[in-house]
C-alpha cells in the first residue's frame, strides 16, 4: 500500500448510531464544520435550546463552547430530573453548577478550550471505535499534584504527577504546558509526550487486563507464537528441561533472545512435536 497526497485519509470510526444526536452549543461560524463527523445540530442562541431540550435523550451528546448557553440550558431544565445524555463543556465552569450538571447528565467533562483536543481531532476521537482508550482533554491540579484526563467516553482518570518520570535523555514533564495531541493518543507536558496506552495500562486495571490478554493472543513475534503453542500443548516452561532451561524459554517468549541456537530450536520443536519452522505460524 502506498500513500500519496491525493489519497483520502480513511478514519476508523463507528457510524453515528441511529437515535444518537449531538448538539453543538457554539456561536462561531467555522467551528461546526470541524465537527462534521458527528453531524452536529448547532445551537447558537438561548431560544434554540428549547427545541433541543425537547428532543434530547439519554444518548444525546452536548458539546458547549459557550458558557452563557450552558447556563441557559441548565435554567431551561424544568420538572423532575431526567438524563439529557453526556456533556462536554469546553469553557470555564462555575463550581456551583456541578450539582445540577450531575443531576442532568449521566456524564460530563469540563476544561478550558486549550485543554481539549482541537475540534476536528475531538470529533474523530469521540467517534472512534476505541474512544474509551483515547484522551480528549484534561486538567492539571497543581495543589494536589494530579492530572485528571477525560477519556473519549467522558470517563475521568486521575493520575499523579509522579507517574511521569524523567526519561533517560533528560526530558522532564512541564505540567504548566499540558495538552493532548495525536487525536487523543498522546498526552503532552511541554517537551514530554506520554503515550495514552501507557497511562491507561498503569492506572486502569480493566484496560490492563484486556490489553494483556489481547497482546498475548495477537502478538506476532516468535516468542509470542512459542508461548501460544506451549499453552496449546499444555506444557510448562519447566517441561522443556533438561535440554532447554525454563529461564531460556521465558527469555525467548519475552523477545529477549535475538539468536536462538539451532540445537535449542530443535529441542523446543521436538518437545512441541512440530517442525522448527512451524512454531512461528502459531
Amino acid at each position: 500500500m502506498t500513500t500519496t497526497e491525493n489519497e483520502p485519509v480513511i478514519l476508523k470510526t463507528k457510524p453515528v448510531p441511529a437515535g444518537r444526536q449531538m448538539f453543538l452549543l457554539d456561536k462561531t461560524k467555522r467551528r461546526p464544520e470541524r465537527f462534521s463527523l458527528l453531524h452536529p445540530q448547532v445551537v447558537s442562541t438561548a431560544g434554540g435550546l428549547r427545541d433541543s431540550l425537547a428532543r434530547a435523550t439519554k444518548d444525546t451528546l452536548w458539546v458547549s463552547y459557550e458558557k452563557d448557553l450552558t447556563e441557559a440550558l441548565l435554567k431551561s431544565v424544568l420538572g423532575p430530573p431526567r438524563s439529557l445524555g453526556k456533556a462536554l463543556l469546553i469553557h470555564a465552569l462555575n463550581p456551583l453548577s456541578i450539582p445540577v450538571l450531575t443531576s442532568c447528565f449521566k456524564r460530563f467533562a469540563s476544561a478550558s478550550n486549550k485543554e481539549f483536543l482541537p475540534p476536528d481531532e475531538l470529533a474523530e476521537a469521540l467517534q472512534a471505535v476505541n474512544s474509551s482508550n483515547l484522551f480528549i482533554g484534561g486538567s492539571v491540579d497543581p495543589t494536589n499534584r494530579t492530572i485528571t484526563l477525560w477519556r473519549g467516553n467522558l470517563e475521568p482518570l486521575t493520575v499523579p504527577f509522579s507517574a511521569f518520570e524523567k526519561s533517560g535523555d533528560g526530558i522532564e514533564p512541564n505540567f504548566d504546558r499540558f495538552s493532548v495531541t495525536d487525536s487523543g493518543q498522546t498526552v503532552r507536558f511541554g517537551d514530554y509526550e506520554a503515550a495514552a496506552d501507557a497511562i491507561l495500562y498503569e492506572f486502569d486495571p480493566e484496560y490492563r487486563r484486556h490489553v494483556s490478554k489481547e497482546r498475548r493472543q495477537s502478538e506476532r513475534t516468535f516468542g509470542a507464537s512459542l508461548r501460544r503453542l506451549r499453552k496449546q500443548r499444555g506444557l510448562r516452561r519447566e517441561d522443556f528441561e533438561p535440554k532447554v532451561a525454563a529461564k531460556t524459554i521465558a527469555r525467548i517468549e519475552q523477545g529477549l533472545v535475538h539468536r536462538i541456537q539451532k540445537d535449542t530450536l530443535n529441542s523446543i520443536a521436538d518437545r512441541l512435536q512440530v517442525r522448527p519452522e512451524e512454531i512461528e505460524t502459531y
Partner: protein
Amino acid sequence: MPFDLPLSAALRKARWKVKIREKENREPPHVTIIRGTQAWRINLRTGEFMDRHPDPADVPGEIIVHIKTEENWTLLCQQWDEKYPTNPVHEPDDNDGE
C-alpha cells in the same frame, strides 16, 4: 521530547507520524507509527509488528521501508537507548546462552 522520525511531505499530509515517546519504559523497545486515532508498534529487537490490531497491512509499505533503512533503524535504536537506558534494544547477552 519525543523522537519524531522525519517523513515525506505526502506522508505527513496524510497524517502519518513515527515516534518514540516518553513513559514507555515498561514495554519492549519499539517505535510507534501513528495516524489519527490508531497506532501500530514495531519491535526494535525483532523488526516485527507487535500487535495484530490494527491491521499492519494498513501501514503504507513506504513507511516500513523508510523505518527499516539501516540509517533510520540505527537512529531509532539509538534514540530508544537514550530514552530508556535500563531497557536497551541490544542487551549485552542477547543469545540464548545454551
